[in-house]
C-alpha cells in the first residue's frame, strides 16, 4: 500500500481511538459478542429440536433427550404441524419397519444429518461414551435467533464503519484541515482511499472477532469477507456523504442512522413476509447481504449463490456510487 495512503488511515485510526463515539464503534463487536453469548444459548448447548410422539418407546425418547431438545406430541399430525412451523425442528415418527425422520425442507442440511446420525447411533447402540466424536460437531446446532443477531451485527458493523469515516471527515471539516492536505503531493483519490480503509478494516476485524467469539469461526470466512466487502461499499459512500454534509459529529452520526431503516427492514422482510412481498426488497443491498450471510452462517452457502448475491449488492452500490461520487469529490475540494 502507498505510504501516504497508509498515513491517512493510521491518522484516522489514532484519532478514532481518542474519540468516545468512535472508540465505542470500534469495540462494538466485542461488546456485542459478549452480550449475545450471555443472552442466547451458546453453540455447545445442544439446541437441536426434535418432535416425537408421546406414546413412543421411553427408551427411544430418552436416547434423543441426551443429545437434543425433544418436544412430545399426542398424534403424528401434531408432530407434522409442529415441524411445518418456521423454526428448525425435525420430526421422528415410528414407521412400519424403522423410524422415519422428516423435515420441512428449509432446515440446514447439517441439522438433518445430525438427527440421522443420532438415529443411526441409536440403532447400533452407540452412546457418547463409546465414541470420541463430539455430537455437537455434526450438525448445525446454532439457534436461529443467535444466527439472526450475528447476521444483523455483521451488517451493523459495516454501517458503523461508514460512521467512522463520517466522523473523521467531520473532524477534518471542523479543523479545516482538508485544504492543508490538498497542498501536499497526496492525490485526491489517494486521500479518499486512505479515508476509506477504516470503513473496511474495522468491520472486517470486527466481524471476524464476532464470528470467533460467538462460535461461528467454522463458517466460510472467504465467503463472509466477500459479502462484507461488497456491503461496505454502500456504507463507505454514505459515510463520506454524511461527513461532507454535516459539520457536527453527533449530527453526522445521527444521519448515518438512515441506513438502519433499510437494514432492519430487509431483515424483517426476509424473515417475516411471504414470498410475494420479497421482490420489494430486491433493490435494497442489505436484503441480499442478509440472505447471503444467513447461508454463510448456516454453512450452506454455495460459491455460486454467494457470488450472485455479492454481484447484486455491488451492482446496486455502483448505481449509488455513480450518483454520489461527484458530490464526494466536490465536497473534498477545500
Amino acid at each position: 500500500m502507498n505510504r501516504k495512503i497508509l498515513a491517512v488511515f493510521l491518522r484516522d485510526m489514532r484519532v478514532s481511538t481518542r474519540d468516545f463515539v468512535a472508540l465505542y464503534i470500534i469495540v462494538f463487536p466485542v461488546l456485542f459478542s459478549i452480550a449475545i453469548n450471555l443472552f442466547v444459548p451458546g453453540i455447545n448447548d445442544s439446541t437441536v429440536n426434535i418432535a416425537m410422539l408421546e406414546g413412543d418407546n421411553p427408551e427411544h425418547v430418552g436416547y434423543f433427550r441426551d443429545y437434543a431438545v425433544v418436544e412430545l406430541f399426542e398424534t403424528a399430525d401434531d408432530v407434522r404441524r409442529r415441524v411445518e412451523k418456521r423454526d428448525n425442528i425435525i420430526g421422528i415418527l415410528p414407521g412400519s419397519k424403522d423410524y422415519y425422520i422428516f423435515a420441512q425442507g428449509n432446515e440446514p442440511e447439517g441439522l438433518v444429518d445430525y438427527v440421522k446420525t443420532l438415529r443411526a447411533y441409536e440403532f447400533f447402540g452407540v452412546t457418547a461414551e463409546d465414541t470420541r466424536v463430539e455430537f455437537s460437531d455434526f450438525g448445525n446446532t446454532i439457534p436461529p435467533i443467535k444466527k439472526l443477531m450475528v447476521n444483523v451485527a455483521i451488517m451493523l458493523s459495516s454501517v458503523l464503519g461508514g460512521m467512522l469515516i463520517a466522523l473523521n471527515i467531520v473532524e477534518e471539516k471542523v479543523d479545516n484541515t482538508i485544504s492543508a492536505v490538498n497542498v501536499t503531493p497526496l492525490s485526491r483519490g489517494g486521500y479518499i482511499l486512505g479515508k476509506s480503509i477504516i470503513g473496511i478494516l474495522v468491520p472486517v476485524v470486527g466481524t471476524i472477532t464476532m464470528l470467533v467469539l460467538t462460535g461461528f469461526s467454522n463458517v466460510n470466512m472467504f465467503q463472509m469477507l466477500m459479502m462484507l466487502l461488497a456491503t461496505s461499499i454502500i456504507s463507505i459512500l454514505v459515510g463520506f456523504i454524511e461527513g461532507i454534509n454535516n459539520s457536527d459529529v453527533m449530527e453526522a452520526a445521527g444521519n448515518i442512522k438512515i441506513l438502519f431503516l433499510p437494514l432492519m427492514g430487509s431483515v424483517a422482510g426476509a424473515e417475516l413476509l411471504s414470498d410475494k412481498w420479497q421482490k420489494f426488497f430486491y433493490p435494497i443491498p442489505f436484503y441480499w447481504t442478509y440472505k447471503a450471510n444467513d447461508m454463510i452462517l448456516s454453512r450452506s452457502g454455495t460459491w455460486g449463490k454467494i457470488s450472485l448475491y455479492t454481484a447484486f449488492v455491488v451492482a446496486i452500490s455502483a448505481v449509488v456510487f455513480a450518483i454520489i461520487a461527484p458530490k464526494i469529490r466536490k465536497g473534498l475540494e477545500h
Partner: protein
Amino acid sequence: MISVKNLYHSYSNDEKYAVKDVSFEITEGEVFGFLGPSGAGKSTTQGILTGLLQLQKGDVTVAGYDIKHIKNEMFNKIGMSFEQSNVYSKMTGKENLEFYRKLFDVKTRDPQELLELVGLGDKGDIKAGEYSKGMKHRLTFARSMINNPTLWFLDEPTTGLDPSIASEIKSIIKEKNREGVTIFLTTHNMFIADELCDRVGFIVDGEIKLIDSPKNLKLQYGEKFVDVEYVDGKEAKKESLSFMEKEDIGRLKEILDSYEIRTMHTKEATLEEIFIKVTGRELV
C-alpha cells in the same frame, strides 16, 4: 517562479469577478508582497496559485508547472501557510507535523526542530486543540516549512501574533529568503511588507493597481511629511503635514505662528500612505 497572465475568477461563475485581469511575474528568490484591503482578492489569487481553487480563466505557471493541469508532485516544492490556522485539534503539535511530513516525497524537516524554531519546543506533546490562537498559527506556519519548499506562500503570517513572536517569524522569513526561497506574501500589514518585500503589488477590488519595489514607490510618491507636536492651551496636539500640498504648508505656518512647538520631525511617506494615495482606499 510564478507567472500569472490575465487571471479572472468568479465564485458565482458569472461576470462578478473576485479577481479581474490580474497579471504579474515573480522571479526566483524574490519576496513578493501582495497587498490590499479585505476582500480585495488576495486569498482568491493565492488559492488559484496553490491549486486549492480551480483555474477558470487565464494562464498561470507555478514553479514550472502549468496550473491548468496540476501535478501532485508540484506540491513537493511548495509550502503554504494559511491565514486561518488549520491543524488537527485532536492531535498534538508533534503528531500534526509527523503526519504531514509523511505526505511528501521529498526530504522533510524534523518536527521537533520546527517546533523549536517557532517557539513551541516544549509544547509538542500537547494537543493542538489546547493551543492558543497564536500557537495554532505558529504551528500552521511551521508546518508549511516541513518539505523545505522552494516556493513559499504565506497568507498573513504575523497577523494576531504578539510583537516579539511576530518579529521572530519575520526573521525566519528573511533567513529562508537568504537561502534562496521565493516567497509570495499576502498581507494588509504595510510595515511587514515594507520590511520584507523586494516588490509589492497593490490589489483592490480584484484588480492590480500597481507593482513596484517599496524603494521605488517611496522615491516616486515619497513626498516629505512633517510630524509636528504642539501645545494648544493646555492640550498637546499632533499633526502630520505634507511639504507638497499648499494647504498643508499654510497650516504648518499657522501652527508655527500661533502655538508653542514641542517636537517637529520630517519623515518619508509610509507604504500605507502611498497605498492610500495610489488606490484612494484605506487598507482595512
